[in-house]
């Protein structure tokens, strides 16, 4: 049988981005450090071009490459978030790399390669393509974590991330073999139509599913696979941390959603409770452990664990509304986290990066605009209306309560109600440390002022993300995004 010509059109954004990345790699290799500015600018441009392409190819569900690759509204939505996240990370890194004498053009190129991997993950429709995308992404990120190779912290972060990440990949792969062994297929579409019978097959499939999910839960850094997060966040160069906190999380979450809702859709009653427990534990750990942190990057690591907990609560619902809430939350999370890291990147004193919470003391008097932006991000991360983070929490809680209302058994219903209640209560705990940062910024007496200027790119990112976070709840912003997320969620539910 002659294989048909693959439907290249649906993967056009990935193909173009890969091509552009390779060209930029050449430019960087030949141009050396001189070409850094050019490569960075062109990388951002490549992201922009790819976003346009994603928008142009956005349409009804289509598969290609022997059913390995799928494009739908869900994929488009997630890809755009990832591309925005990567572009923001590249823009924000400019000043930092210059000052730390890290001007190697590989930096933006690696980010772009990771982005291609993430886009593949988002469009994966088969365990094979899932793994290929995941590894492409991970390998690029391992290098990035250790990018500041002359400092011990960065090297340690890279190594730690690599060892633990490789372990997680191994677990995922083992799970994949189990799934294949017990079902005879790796295709998401075929898995989704499977009606597991009682007995050995179900048990094997369940274990396989749990292991595959574990690998992804590592990537989104949810409890109990969160250990690497604080160390890697703290050790990696700050722009890399900014990257880690946003784009890979979105991609891994997209993959998890597609896998759970699609391939393992028939097993929803089995995984629902697992995800629910992971969600609540992540909220709890993220909420409580962050309180004692004094390093702002570590604090953001725990904050992201807590946020992932809320996102997983939406996934645990296992409904279209649940997916919608995940999408909305991720869109908001992207902007408020990137913005917060923008402020952290501006924390520089006498030419050195500072990252203790106390270094923010009295920021409102020395740098009022930066202080206001950070305050907006913190209140938003805490989920206080009218800021963006509130809308995210609103949708997640709504999805959880809705899942409870439609649960098959009273026990499941109650577990959703309890999880929503706990989530609400823990959000008060998390609010404590967000408030603590605001207290340091607004109430404490000023420390020595931070260096000026923050840099045009960085200031721009902080301004845009702050405005987005502040104005998100207004009808002209929230309306289209919610509508779009709705369409994306529908496309996944089919």
């Amino acid at each position, binding site marked *: 049988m002659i294989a048909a010509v693959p439907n290249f059109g649906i993967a056009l954004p990935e193909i173009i981005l890969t091509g552009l990345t390779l060209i930029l790699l050449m430019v960087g290799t030949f141009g050396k450090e001189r070409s850094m500015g050019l490569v960075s600018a062109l990388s951002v441009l490549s992201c922009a071009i790819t976003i346009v392409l994603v928008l142009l190819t956005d349409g009804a569900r289509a598969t290609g490459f022997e059913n390995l690759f799928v494009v739908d509204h869900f994929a488009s939505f997630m890809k755009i978030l990832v591309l925005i996240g990567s572009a923001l990370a590249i823009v924000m890194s400019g000043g930092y790399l210059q000052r730390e004498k890290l001007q190697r053009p590989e930096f933006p190129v690696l980010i772009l390669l990771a982005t291609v991997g993430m886009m593949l993950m988002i469009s994966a429709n088969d365990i094979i393509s899932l793994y290929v995308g995941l590894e492409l992404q991970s390998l690029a990120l391992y290098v990035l974590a250790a990018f500041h190779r002359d400092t011990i912290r960065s090297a340690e972060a890279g190594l730690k991330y690599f060892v633990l990440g490789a372990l997680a990949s191994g677990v995922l792969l083992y799970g994949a073999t189990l799934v294949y062994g017990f079902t005879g297929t790796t295709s998401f579409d075929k898995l989704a139509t499977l009606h597991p019978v009682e007995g050995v097959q179900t048990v094997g499939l369940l274990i396989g599913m749990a292991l595959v999910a574990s690998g992804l839960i590592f990537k989104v850094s949810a409890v109990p696979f969160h250990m690497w997060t604080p160390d890697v966040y703290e050790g990696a160069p700050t722009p890399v941390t900014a990257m880690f906190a946003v784009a890979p999380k979105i991609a891994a979450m997209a993959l998890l959603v597609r896998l759970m809702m699609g391939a393992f859709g028939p097993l929803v009653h089995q995984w629902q409770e697992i995800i629910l427990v992971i969600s609540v534990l992540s909220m709890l750990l993220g909420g409580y452990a962050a309180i004692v942190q004094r390093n702002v990057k570590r604090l953001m690591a725990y904050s992201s664990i807590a946020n992932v907990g809320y996102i997983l609560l939406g996934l645990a619902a296992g409904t279209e509304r649940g997916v919608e809430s995940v999408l909305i939350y991720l869109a908001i999370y992207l902007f408020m986290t990137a913005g917060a890291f923008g402020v952290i990147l501006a924390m520089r004193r006498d030419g050195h990066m500072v990252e203790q919470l106390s270094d923010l003391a009295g920021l409102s008097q020395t740098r009022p605009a930066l202080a206001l932006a950070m305050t907006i991000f913190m*209140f938003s991360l805490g989920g206080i209306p009218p800021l963006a983070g509130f809308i995210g929490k*609103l949708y997640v809680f709504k999805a959880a309560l809705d899942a409870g*209302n439609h649960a098959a058994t009273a026990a499941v219903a109650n577990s959703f109600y309890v999880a929503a209640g706990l989530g*609400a209560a823990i959000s*008060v705990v998390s609010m*404590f440390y967000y*408030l603590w940062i605001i207290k340091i910024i*607004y*109430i404490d007496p000023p420390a020595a002022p931070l260096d000026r200027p923050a840099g045009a790119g960085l200031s721009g990112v902080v301004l845009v993300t702050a405005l987005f976070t502040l104005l998100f709840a207004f009808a002209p912003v929230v309306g289209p995004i919610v509508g779009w997320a709705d369409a994306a969620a529908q496309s996944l539910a089919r």
Partner: protein
Amino acid sequence: MAPWPILSIVTFLPLLGAALIMLLPQTQAGERNVRWTALWTSVITFIVSLFILVYFDPTNPGFQLIERADWIPGTGIIYQKGVDGISIWFVLVSTFLTPICIISAWQAIHNRVREFMIAMLVLETMMVGMFSALDIILLYVFFEGVLIPMFLIIGIWGGQRRVYAAFKFFLYTLLGSVLMLLAILAMYLQTGTTDLIVILHSPFSRELQIWMWLAYFASFAVKMPMWPVHTWLPDAHVEAPTAGSVILAAVLLKMGGYGFIRFSVQMLPDASAYFAPFMFSLSIVAIIYTSLVALVQTDMKKLIAYSSVAHMGFVTLGIFTLNQEGIDGAVFQMLSHAIVSGALFLCVGVVYDRLHTREIARYGGMARTMPRYALVFAVFMLASVGLPGTSGFIGEFLALIGAFQVNRWAAFLATTGIILGAAYMLVLYRRLFYGEITKDDVRAMPDLNWREMGFFAPLLALTLWMGIYPSSFKDLIDPSVAQIVAHQSHATGQSPRAAAIPAPLIHAVQVEASR
């Protein structure tokens, strides 16, 4: 019907002023401009808000001046505003007190004036937005949004323990609020809409009502605040700057009472009837216990804060009588308390600005050197006690009439609270104003200046107006309350208890009041 979206304009006008202040140049003269811009914004907002009264039809008990727009399409969450005979007064109280607070902060706040004025104006937007929202999600957004500017006001411009007080205020209130959010979402999922008017007419099952009632209770009881979750209030009041205390006492606490009426009583009638005895008990404990606590305070602001908790006890008592007089009284008491306690905090602010202490024992004999101040304080003190002829009397009396019909013991016990109220306020007054002046710095304090008399005058006039001719206010409140009571008794299948009290008695109250 108003020819323009007046409620939205009143809501967002202060925000516009805040944006303007942000754009003003940061110079020495800039500080003066900031103050004047803030003042003018709030004064214009108040004048515009008076048009709400002009367009309001007192004969219509339902919601009026309704504005509707899409918010989040496809979800049933809409932007809807409107007022009825109850909420209109809270909107007006908010717009009325903000300029007074800004004037009171004219000299008291001298560092970071710009941020302070922005916070005050944002706060005004949130308050007005909350009372005029007719969509439960929109209402929640404003309800919780209040926390942000208030946290900053207490935290930045507060006293010694301001950080502790601000955190306690924020986290306490937030914990209640998030539970309320779950109840709001439960309502939304049941009815498929967040339109408050539709939800008011949607019945919920009894079991669900009880759960939702408890969630709302968690929020409103903290906000009110009710005993035993009132402990954040004395701290917040003591540490907040004068303007913050005024807004806190006058408006923020009323959000709890308004919420109880709007959500608990109107939307969850069965659960409200079920929990009424529980609310009675808590209210009575609040009235008696916090009055006793107030008696032993040595800090002026703390004393008034505890008296607020006691007065709010009358409000919850009135609301959960679930009859016309009780709810009427509760609403009136809230309005009266807004003016009177706001004024009392301003009174404390006057001497605090001069001597920088709130300790009662540091003062004494001020009646000789500050006669004007003594007079003003006396009027508000007596209004707080509930002397006939002042606004405080009407609300407490109506609430007690309402309670008497439902539970005589409750009414009896609550009445003892009035006696205790008189005790602690009179003791406070004696210790502040009578006796010999022993301290030179107290002797040297100047009497009220023109600015201070300027902001006390309208408060004084209102206190007497509400006490002598309450009908101007009650005429708008009554129809809306009557509708609530009718709806309530219809829903729970009981005959309205209000019928038991003859109209002449109500008349007698007013005659008594005007004497």
